[in-house]
């Protein structure tokens, strides 16, 4: 486990001057990831905030080889890059002792929704890569439209808090669980507030043989209607309310990597975000109750699974 000092001493591979918002969760996530790899990294990003915010020609925030291709194909793009790498190694065009890590990054839209098929295919094919979803809970780049990762009740521009339908009416997809069902060597959930946990998971994820997946919650002041200075705290609350449990599944064994000393009520996380404001009206309290119930049940399920084989 690296210390913060050690991590900070490493080369900055993701430069400042990018155009992501202040308080955005993505830059600290990417910085931690790149510092955990231990070898040169080649990365691709799906269309979305990360891509747009880091690559406006003629500038780039990337000090590693990086490509953006389209919205739904980060996993397929990295499949091609990683296959070229294997072909070149076989032919001696890359020295046998040179190791490169492959990283695909996508938002929840590019991962849970439109890029889901490409992700599933790449996981099944067993490419040696790490896929990281930064989950900010909506299509933020295009103006906060709902995704299948958007929490129940959350107001987005395509699930506004209306008189009849108060925000998103559906429970979110549990993508991490779906990914685990692909039987890949490593999958985990992480959060940027817990850098130590995130860094350790990223290191494992980069170093397993075969596909690895990390789902990382990423606060978005613009889409969450929260204060930029509250972002890290918002990430912490997501974890301490158990909305976003930190766990990993390594070679089929599930391990909860963090248990809050005091599990907080979901309302604590909701109330610092404007997207949930309407849920505090009496007529919408059932949504709050339902959310709490489902979170409790899911947390219990994870605790019951802790240390056990998932299948």
């Amino acid at each position, binding site marked *: 486990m690296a210390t913060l000092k050690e991590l900070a001493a490493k080369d900055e591979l993701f430069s400042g001057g990018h155009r992501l918002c202040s308080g955005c969760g993505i830059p600290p996530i990417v910085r931690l990831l790149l510092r955990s790899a231990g070898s040169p*990294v*080649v990365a691709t990003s799906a269309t979305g905030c990360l891509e747009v915010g880091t690559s406006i020609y003629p500038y780039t925030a990337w000090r590693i080889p*990086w490509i953006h291709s389209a919205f*739904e194909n980060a996993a*397929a793009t990295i499949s091609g*890059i990683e296959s070229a790498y294997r072909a*070149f190694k076989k032919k001696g065009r890359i020295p046998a002792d040179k190791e490169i890590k492959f990283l695909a990054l996508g938002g929840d839209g590019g991962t849970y929704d439109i890029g889901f098929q490409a992700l599933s295919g790449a996981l099944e094919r067993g490419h040696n890569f790490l896929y990281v979803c930064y989950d900010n809970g909506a299509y933020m780049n295009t103006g906060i439209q709902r995704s299948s990762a958007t929490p129940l009740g959350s107001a987005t521009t395509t699930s506004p808090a209306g008189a009849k339908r108060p925000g998103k009416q559906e429970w979110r997809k549990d993508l991490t669980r779906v990914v685990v069902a692909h039987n890949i060597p490593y999958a985990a959930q992480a959060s940027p507030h817990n850098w130590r946990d995130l860094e350790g998971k990223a290191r494992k994820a980069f170093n397993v043989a075969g596909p690895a997946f990390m789902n990382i919650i990423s606060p978005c002041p613009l889409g969450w209607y929260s204060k930029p200075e509250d972002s890290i705290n918002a990430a912490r609350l997501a974890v301490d309310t158990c909305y976003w449990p930190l766990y990993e599944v390594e070679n089929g064994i599930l391990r909860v990597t963090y248990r809050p000393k005091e599990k907080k009520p979901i309302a604590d996380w909701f109330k610092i975000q404007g997207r949930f404001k309407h849920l505090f009206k009496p007529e919408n309290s059932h949504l709050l109750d339902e959310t709490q119930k489902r979170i409790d049940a899911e947390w219990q399920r994870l605790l019951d699974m802790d240390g056990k084989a998932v299948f």
Partner: protein
Amino acid sequence: MAIVTGKQVGLTGNSAIAYAMRQIDPDVCAAYPITPSTGIIEEFSSYYADGQVSTELITVESEHSAMSACVGASAAGARVMTATSSQGLALMWEMLYIASGMRLPVVMTVVNRALSAPINIHCDHSDSMGARDSGWIQLYSETVQEAYDNLLQAVRIAEDPRVLTPAMVCMDGFITSHAVENITLLADGEVKGFIGDYKPGRSLLDTDNPITMGAMTLQDVYMDFKHEQSMAIAGAKEVVVEVGSDFGRRFGRHYGLMECYRLEDAEAAIVVLNSAAGTTKVAVDELRKKGKKVGLLKPRLFRPFPYAEIAAALKNVKAVCVLDRADSMNGFGGPLFSEVRSALYGLASVPKVMGRIFGLGGRDYTVEHSTAVFEGLYRIIETGRMEELTGYLKS
């Protein structure tokens, strides 16, 4: 399965393409099955399974991912190939533009097939014509031999540093892909010598010299990128000619921008792509025997469109019928018609040009159809009147 007679080998179009791919031995191939191109990938998979290629084969979960993986691999500096048809090409549509916009020399065989709905697995050119503005070079092939030769040349054309543009080689579904034809294959060494090594100017795998690819551009530069791309594709015409001549010098089969068949003194001509040109040649020969001055122009290169050369080749013809195996659905005739007619517009004396849609979804095109078209052209020449400018071929 090959049938060998003397120096010739009987192969289907698909087998010949798979054979060429084995000889090219690309670094990466990412593909997804679809009739009628499936055989290519099946046979290539056998070469892969038997260790006859050094390729990394990615059996992706869709054509969108096939082209996406091709883009990734090509950006990494690999020589990359794939094949598809119809719905598969349609699903790739978004990625075609990304491959060409990033100037990645991916080479793809398109086995032409109709587009749904209604679903139909047979030949027409709706698929590749739908991709005609995607910034890919398009080579069309009348025969199995041409498809084989075109694929080898496409590698060199696409990878030429002056071009750096993806290329598709088109052949007719079933008619060419599944018909056995006696062809002459090159030796593996000849293929290697002809295509050479691919030396990419940049690679994502060069981690010491990191590059950013696929950056976002705004109003200030996007158009300049597109202009440069457009100029590069236009310049590909010269390279196609160069590569075709070199191929001819080495192997005796010469290729240019188009084939003109008995066109020098022709009064009436048909312009048509791919296998229908073969049928038309038979009609031309029969009518020539009867003293009719008829001929054929078969474009080989459709993108970039060799408009000046086509105009020059048709300038003395009195009446032309352009046959399109794809409908632009209420455009001004089919795509080949509107481009050929437009190419002729600047001539001092413009031939009469009509357009006919034919052969959709595998509808037969016979020598009789071809003969009837020539007869129609003669009526125009004799009467000076064209009754129907564009429409569907009566069949």
